[in-house]
């Protein structure tokens, strides 16, 4: 899906928990997330801490969208 969206000329960032799969399917801008059942959260943390963590990840994704790349890039 991410590849077809990018082919249409839209810049896409793939935020996912299993980076090797994204690399295999051809994601270009990849942001690793927290865990498979909760990529943008951590149920062990308080609601406020969890939301701050989520915000950091979204900000990282926005940063990735604004970064020039030549090849598949994982934004650690």
């Amino acid at each position: 899906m991410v590849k077809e969206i990018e082919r249409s000329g839209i810049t896409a960032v793939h935020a996912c928990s299993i980076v090797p799969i994204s690399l295999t399917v051809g994601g270009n801008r990849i942001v690793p997330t927290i865990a498979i059942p909760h990529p943008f959260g951590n149920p062990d943390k308080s609601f406020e801490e969890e939301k701050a963590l989520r915000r950091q990840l979204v900000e990282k994704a926005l940063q990735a969208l604004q970064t020039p790349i030549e090849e598949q890039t994982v934004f650690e």
Partner: protein
Amino acid sequence: MSTRYTIIHCLNQFFGGIGGEEQANIPPCLFPGPKGPGMLIQKEFPEIEIAATLIFGDNYVAENPETAIREILSLLTPHCTENRPDLLVAGPAFTAGRYGIACGAICEAVQEELDLPAVTGMYPNNPAVELYRQHTFIARTSENVMGMTDAIRNMIPLGLKLVRQEEVWPEKDGYLLQGRRKNIFAPEAGAKRAVTMLLARMNGEPFTTEYPMPVFDRAEPAPPIEDMRRARLALVTSGGIVPKGNPDRIEAASAQRFGTYSLEGLHAFSAQTHQTAHGGYDPTYANEDPNRVLPLDVVRELEAEGAIGSLHEYYYATVGNATSVENARKYGQQIAKVLVADGVQAVILTST
């Protein structure tokens, strides 16, 4: 009396009989004797004895591959000194991506570190195939567990040939191409074979190439967004976040559709409004707070603060769980068409 072979079998928590997604985080553990599909292996191949079964949680291995593989090796090492097994069999994993990655990583590790032959089985579209096919033997299987018996009948003879150090060939022994070249004697010289092939092609007759070209399906990286504060963003997910009740009945696995859902007036997802339809992970956390899979709450905040220009009024969701590559491609194209028409420049696609 026929030769007996001792094998170690590796299974995920599901096939190992420990539990479903709620157990996907269990660390690797070793049990004596066969479990689940191991029983079928022993039934189909009476010369085989499964000495032990290693069971691991899908998420545990997929999320921390390096640690998990180290733990697996230290569990297996004592078994490989006294009463050394002949072979390690992992899976089959069919189209399961996390399971496939674990099987591939385990096979690669035991071959290298313990010098033990290893075999696994997968459907050719499993994402783990591209990662592991060069260094491991992956027997071809069907898409799902309906093909368990055939998968075992394919994996085990291949594995036993490896044990006996017999020559194996991808077509004959039913495993996925490793990209190796082997020297063979052919009755006719290359020039003659090539011309024969060319003539067949010109006459519209069938022929088989001796060197299939690799297919690289890559999209060029799109140029960066100059300034997100002026860009239009859309949200897409394969994590199965849908309005409560799953109105489009998106399938929990092998999804046949994607959904288009309005974000109008919505500041965040909540347990009251949305849920997950995904059958490939424990839904507890996503159902408690769907923003954990598709972070609408934070995206809305950033939009209000001006860090994001504007948000497309809909989000798009499907279930990425053994979904065919063909379908995923189709959904991506259909979604992209709508987004382009609405002037969207950037997409955040989230996956579990």
